[in-house]
């Protein structure tokens, strides 16, 4: 997993609530057996027109979105399916962080597992951020994971919460499976004591 320390980037401001995993990555793309290449299908049904050409009205296709690695989304981001293909497609497109007032549980956990940082923001800050990025699209946002802070300017900045363990994994680029495997002895003990 790629390490995450400090990220400064333009922001794709997408003011839609309840963006579900079927929109992030429609089911027909889940038949692939590879882990990479899902960025092409991100928001596919909104992003492309019927003839397959890019929808000029969709924000990801706007020039100022190119190179952005932060997504600012509406409430309840990532609701629906457990498909990890959803954070895969976001990361493959180029995002490394998503800001929202709330995340669906499974999406939140899946994102952390692969190094996509979900940052929970207050409703008030959500409104201010959308106002800022919609009026000045070239503004950038900095996320400082060690300090657990995001900043646009002196007057627009906040602390964010993250479980210390998830934070450490991101900072060090550690895959959680390595950590789990270190419990081999305890797992074996559990199995013996539970007649497994």
């Amino acid at each position, binding site marked *: 997993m790629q390490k995450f320390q400090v990220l400064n980037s333009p922001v794709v401001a997408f003011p*839609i*609530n*309840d963006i*579900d995993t*079927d*929109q992030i990555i*429609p*089911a*027909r793309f*889940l*038949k*692939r*057996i*590879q*882990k990479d290449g899902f960025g092409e299908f991100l928001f596919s*049904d909104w992003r492309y027109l019927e003839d397959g050409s890019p929808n000029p009205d969709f924000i990801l296709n706007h020039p100022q979105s190119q190179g952005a690695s932060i997504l600012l989304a*509406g*409430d*309840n981001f990532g*609701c*629906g*399916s*457990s*498909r*990890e*293909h959803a*954070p895969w497609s976001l990361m493959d497109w180029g995002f490394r962080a998503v800001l929202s007032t*709330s995340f*669906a*549980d*499974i999406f939140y*956990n*899946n994102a952390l*597992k*692969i190094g996509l940082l979900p940052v929970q923001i207050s409703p008030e800050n959500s409104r201010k951020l959308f106002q800022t990025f919609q009026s000045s699209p070239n503004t950038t946002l900095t996320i400082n994971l060690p300090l657990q802070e995001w900043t646009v300017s002196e007057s627009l900045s906040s602390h964010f919460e993250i*479980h*210390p*363990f998830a934070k450490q994994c991101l900072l060090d680029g550690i895959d*959680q*499976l390595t*950590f*789990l*495997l270190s*419990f*081999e002895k*305890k*797992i074996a003990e*559990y*199995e013996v004591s*539970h007649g*497994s």
Partner: protein
Amino acid sequence: MSQPQTLFDKIWERHIVSQQPEFPTVLYIDLHLVHEVTSPQAFSGLSDRGFAVRRPEKTFATMDHAIPTLPRSLPVEDEQAAAQLERLENNCREHGIEVFGMDSDRNGIVHVIGPELGLTQPGQTIVCGDSHTSTHGAFGSLAFGIGTSEVEHVLATQCLLQSKPKSFEVLFEGTLPEGVTAKDMILAFIQKAGVGGGSGYVIEYRGAAIEQLDMESRMTICNMSIEAGARAGIIAPDEKTFSYLKGRPFAPSGEAWDAAVEDWKTLPTDEGAQFDKSFNIDVSTLEPMITFGTNPGMGMPIIGTIPELNHGLPAEKRDSLEKALKYMGLEAGQPLIDKKVDVIFLGSCTNSRMNDLRAAASILKGKRISPEVRMLVVPGSQTIKRQAEEEGLAKIFMDAGAEWRESGCSMCIAMNGDQLKPGQYCISTSNRNFEGRQGQGGRTFLASPLTAAASALTGKVTDVRNIYASG
């Protein structure tokens, strides 16, 4: 004297391998269910690192999401789906995992066959790379969906890192009126709680109205817990649970059965146990439900009218509703009764079990569906398919003009060619009505099997209670 515990507390505690304040809990997983869509990259990850599956005998696989529901003798035409199915077959063979493949008479939707085979048992921790894993909570197990990375974790270690969710008590009291089913109960709850209302919680469904439900209805309720954002949904095991499981292929038997039942009887929530939040619903006030929008929370009684845009809704809810109605081609303030529909889908891990088919068949018996609709009936498993054929239900559906299919997820997720054309309206007994869920541009109305069957007769959104009234 120890603190009174909830059912959830008890299961959680029993499965702790390691608990330290600075890390999530290491939780042991009793049963790992696998299907073809969320497992390939997990198995590849495992082989890349040279690991074996730790407990293949606790791992069971099925093929359900992308398989065609056409006759099994036909080849799978979709090359990607065929490759994915073959990959699962190979992975299972390599690791010694039992797989109920397309030619197995035990094949079916993962959350249908788990209980059917007696794999799902009270007090267990059960995971699967699928959000409707919450279904198994109907048996008093802690069952939840996981992503592909976590599938890999469980394959390698039989454990997961989990922070303990909070607990949410949902009390259903009263007596269900005629024509109102478990599907309507859960749609009503999601409408009231919202699609994020259960986020961060494990819901325990309790109360007289839950105790009255049979196991299949309890599965319908727990299945849709995820649509309220909950981590899992759970119902205490009781005599109905034990009776359902007794004699099933993977259930304990003989002395082991007796010992298991004694243990299971200790699981229900203790008197005086505390929940982090609580919600009450009187089911006697419920009516058949239908969704009108593009998430399962956008629902209403079938005889209701779609909410007005300016009725005190906060700005962002108004925007969401407006967007949903635009996609659905509906107007605020409009009723849905008598709305013409194009397709009826009876299937999915929510409602494709025997009682769902029996309920629909009771409405369709001796009648013909409207010539203006296409109806697909997809049994949840091969076992259900056989039983429905023996009971004459399949004949009722076919005589009525519906298509009787092989088992699979089918039009719930529309990965296998069973899908809506753009703009088509479908009354579906499945669990999600997101934009494009059942096919790009497809428009889903979620409802119960009774509502689906009643509407199939008329070709329009229909209140099943009118069918009862007219006899």
